[in-house]
């Protein structure tokens, strides 16, 4: 068993896991953070996407021990008690999700994109979402929502973003 400590959504968390445990399994089974999903377990579908040290990764392709000492952000860490993250707000308004299973992964990839590129073009958005499969929606409204968030920040650059 390995002792793993990491900061998850701003909180220091420790777990004892078998060495072969992936970060995804640790989040879901040990920390009860079931927002990140297991869609394929081999890094193809992106439903497990989380951010580690500011970069979006497939948590199913990372061992929990590799995330030891790192900062992890999951879907559960996007909103605060006071408000939704603008991406969550716009996804809701635009109707970007249907069954919702791919949602957390897409939102994390979208956040990772906007963190690096606050004003992405449509091809750049598509490229950023290439690792997140969705079988329900066709992605159109996700792209619209991301563009709307970028537009929001563009219009009010001084507005404090949630995360």
């Amino acid at each position: 068993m390995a002792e793993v400590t990491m900061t998850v959504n701003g909180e220091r968390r420790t777990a004892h896991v078998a060495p072969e445990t992936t970060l995804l399994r640790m989040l879901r089974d040990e920390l009860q953070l079931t927002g990140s999903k297991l869609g394929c377990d081999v890094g193809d579908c992106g439903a497990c996407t989380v951010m580690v040290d500011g970069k979006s990764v497939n948590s199913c392709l990372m061992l929990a021990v590799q995330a030891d000492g790192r900062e992890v952000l999951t879907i559960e860490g996007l909103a605060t008690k006071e408000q939704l993250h603008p991406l969550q707000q716009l996804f809701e308004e635009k109707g970007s999700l249907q069954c919702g299973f791919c949602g957390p992964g897409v939102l994390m990839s979208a956040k990772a994109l906007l963190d690096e590129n606050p004003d992405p073009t449509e091809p750049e958005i598509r490229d950023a979402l290439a690792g997140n499969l969705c079988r329900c929606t066709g992605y159109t409204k996700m792209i619209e929502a991301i563009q709307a968030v970028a537009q929001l920040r563009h219009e009010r650059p001084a507005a404090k973003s949630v995360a």
Partner: protein
Amino acid sequence: MRAFEVFSAKDSQHAVALLAQHAATSKVKVLAGGTDLLADLKFAPSSHAPAVVVDISRVDDFRGIRKTKEGLSIGSLVTHTEIMNSPIIRDLFPALVDAAHTIGAVQTRNLGTLGGNLVTAVPSVDSGPTLVALDAVVTILGSGGKRHMPLAEFFVGPRKTALKSDELLAEIIIPTENLGKPTHFLKFGLRKGQALALVNVASSIWVDWEKTTFKAARVALGAVAPKVIHATSAESFLEGRPITREAMEEAGKLAAGDARPISDMRASAEYRKDLIAVLTRRTLEGAYALAQAKRTEK
């Protein structure tokens, strides 16, 4: 995934020592970015499963992109995202940026390493052709010390490299004489992202501006033979040849002849040969366009 023990290496010496220690008694696998290894192990039968995994993801001396007296050194743990964002690589080798961009998706590129991509050594290895076209050399670190070999020889066959059981790929060096050599890479997959290459082509050329002829042209092909290969007939043909579209088209046809593609569920061998001809011409055009742009810059 089946149970295994994990030993995390602190530095390169430690990594080599761990490998040497465990490879003697157990089935050992090396873990860097995990995008190939862990994906492989998820549904692997017990016969395939390692007992020990040596995690080298924190070995900092395998990181970094810098100019050395040998040329441009890229650490084996440099991720594909880091390659895409590196100012040196963007300046000297936009083709490497292009190649990195064709790998997987953002999430895979953030974790996946150049070294891992090369060591997995599938015939369609995306980062292979560009580096082979640039005559890249690899540095291997083992319990016996360091050794070097051309990347083209490092690839032995499908999923097989020249690494011994106690060795690690440490760095990839593009030799000084090739720094800034105009190179273009194209991948053809059935999708724009997260796709295996049907065909990969990289063309790298110098231009003799006095005569406007090809100089030291290199054309490397991927996914059309057991490993990355040089299109030697195309390369011989191009040497000293005036740079024209006809010459590029002819080189394409010759390159198709050099390849030994297979027919599989993705495409027929015939289709792959067609692709090689077209992509060779296009990458030669791209390399030449780059050469012209660099010339006008000066």
